[in-house]
């Protein structure tokens, strides 16, 4: 069953100069237990989609549902919880435990079960020593963990995460990525994650939906999107640089060649009739000392930029 359904979603924001279209017939589905990345530049419509799915924003047209429940109804909160805008979702004057118990209670969880879930999440997120500390005294990373724990304590099957790693250091970001992956693999949660951090998305999501100017411009598995832009490009590290004569000889055989790192490396895109052996032969004939050769693979950031620019 689909956990989330977004069909022909339209959102116009009223302004003095007339309505501004933020979403134009956006459609996608998220299956149960999937982690899907929602990508887009600033103003592409990611947060608008997430807020409509939370029931916090009224769509102008179209349909948004969680487990068949329209997101305009309060009951949708039985299925969906969210971490919105980083760590702004917690009460700064309440301690870690008090926040967790409050949000469990807000969901309608009985006190005993709320205490059990609180203890479990405090342990899982490594917040034991800070469990009685008020949220305003926590570090940014801990606030972020607490905000995620507050979304989890509700026990909903769907989790919407808007910029969950915003402002985090590399170590905490990696730790949080592991936790997000565990949500799907260990607990079967459905996660829709919006982030500008491509590393987080590539590391956690199996599938991505890319938005540009309020429209879905790509919706596919990450490996398929990477394959779209895979080329026959190779990067060659040079032991002694690239003398002018060698460069001229290589350029005659391999027109799509460019030097990198102050001529300590070069990147070559092989034409269809040549293979990597032909490249090695050309390098040997030019008298170039080779340190290493590797295939140039596009990462999600390249793919995202090229799709948004309309290259595919």
């Amino acid at each position: 069953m689909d956990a989330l359904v977004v069909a022909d979603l339209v959102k116009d924001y009223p302004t003095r100069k007339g309505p501004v279209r933020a979403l134009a017939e956006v459609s996608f589905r998220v299956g149960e237990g999937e982690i899907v990345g929602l990508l887009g530049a600033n103003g592409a419509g990611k947060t608008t989609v997430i807020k409509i799915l939370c029931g916090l924003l009224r769509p102008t047209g179209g349909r948004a549902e969680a487990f068949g429940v329209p997101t305009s109804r309060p009951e949708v909160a039985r299925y969906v919880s969210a971490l919105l805008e980083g760590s702004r979702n917690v009460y700064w004057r309440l301690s870690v435990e008090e926040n967790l118990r409050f949000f469990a209670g807000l969901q309608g969880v009985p006190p005993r079960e709320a205490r059990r879930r609180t203890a479990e999440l405090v342990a899982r997120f490594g917040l034991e020593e800070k469990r009685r500390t008020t949220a305003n005294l926590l570090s940014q990373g801990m606030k972020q963990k607490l905000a995620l724990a507050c979304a989890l304590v509700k026990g909903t099957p769907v989790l919407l995460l808007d910029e969950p790693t915003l402002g985090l250091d590399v170590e905490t970001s990696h730790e949080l990525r592991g936790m997000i992956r565990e949500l799907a693999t260990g607990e079967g949660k459905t996660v829709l994650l919006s982030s500008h951090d491509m590393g987080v998305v590539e590391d956690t999501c199996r599938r991505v939906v890319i938005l540009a100017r309020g429209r879905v411009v790509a919706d596919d598995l990450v490996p398929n999107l990477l394959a779209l832009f895979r080329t026959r490009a190779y990067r060659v590290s040079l032991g002694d640089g690239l003398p002018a004569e060698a460069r001229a000889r290589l350029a005659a055989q391999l027109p799509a060649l460019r030097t990198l790192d102050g001529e300590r490396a070069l990147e070559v895109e092989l034409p269809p009739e040549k293979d990597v052996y032909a490249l090695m032969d050309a390098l040997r004939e030019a008298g170039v000392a080779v340190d290493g050769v590797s295939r140039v693979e596009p990462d999600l950031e390249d793919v995202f930029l090229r799709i948004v620019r309309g290259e595919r």
Partner: protein
Amino acid sequence: MRYLWTFRAIVVRFLIELKRYPLNTLSSLATLYIVFLILFTGARYAQGLGVNLFGEGLEGLVVGYLVWTFAIIAYSDLSWELMREAQQGTLEQLYMSPQGFRFVSASWIVASFLVSLVWIAALLGLMMLTTGRVLRFPVGTVLPLLLLTVAPVYGIGFAMAGLALVYKRIQAFFQILQFVFVALVALPADAPWGKALPLALGTRLLGRAMADGETLATLPPLDLLALAGTAAFYLLVGVAVFRVFEGIAKDRGLLAHY
């Protein structure tokens, strides 16, 4: 049962926040008492000059001040709290309760009303000690009267909170309303238009219950009916205004922006 657990969570949070800042809580009570002392001193001085500033005497001053205090606490607990929630980003989370935001805010009002009763009892004790006048507190009469008297203030609080969701910075307007409440408490409630205004009639009826020992059975039924009608009218209009502005905020995505 879900509703009960949500209600419990909201009351517990209310109490935790109250307990976490005891100095703030005590200073609020002290400020209210000091303001009363200034009013009381002024009233006694005026009485010494042969001027009766309060038609119903000191009992009128005590009851009027009590109602005004209750109104201010009720109003600020609701409207300031909603603004604070929007400011810190937690209002959206309250909207994401399966029990609905209306239940959440109603629970908040009940918590605020119950805690305000403790405040009012403490302030009443201090005021009686200061004035030397003993006022009655028949719970069965005073509680329903108090609830009906402040219900319009909750309505106004809802309407203001709705305005704040959309227009954001309206604190100056909030503060002006506190002075409007003084006028409403002091207004005569004999004329029909006086009975139709918030606070005026309720203050008079509470005065009769607390100073003269009248009960719900002895108070004029038409006045009680007018009080209930006014309470329902202002509360419903306030909630309706809030819903209109809530809809605008949901259309424009303003629930979290401040």
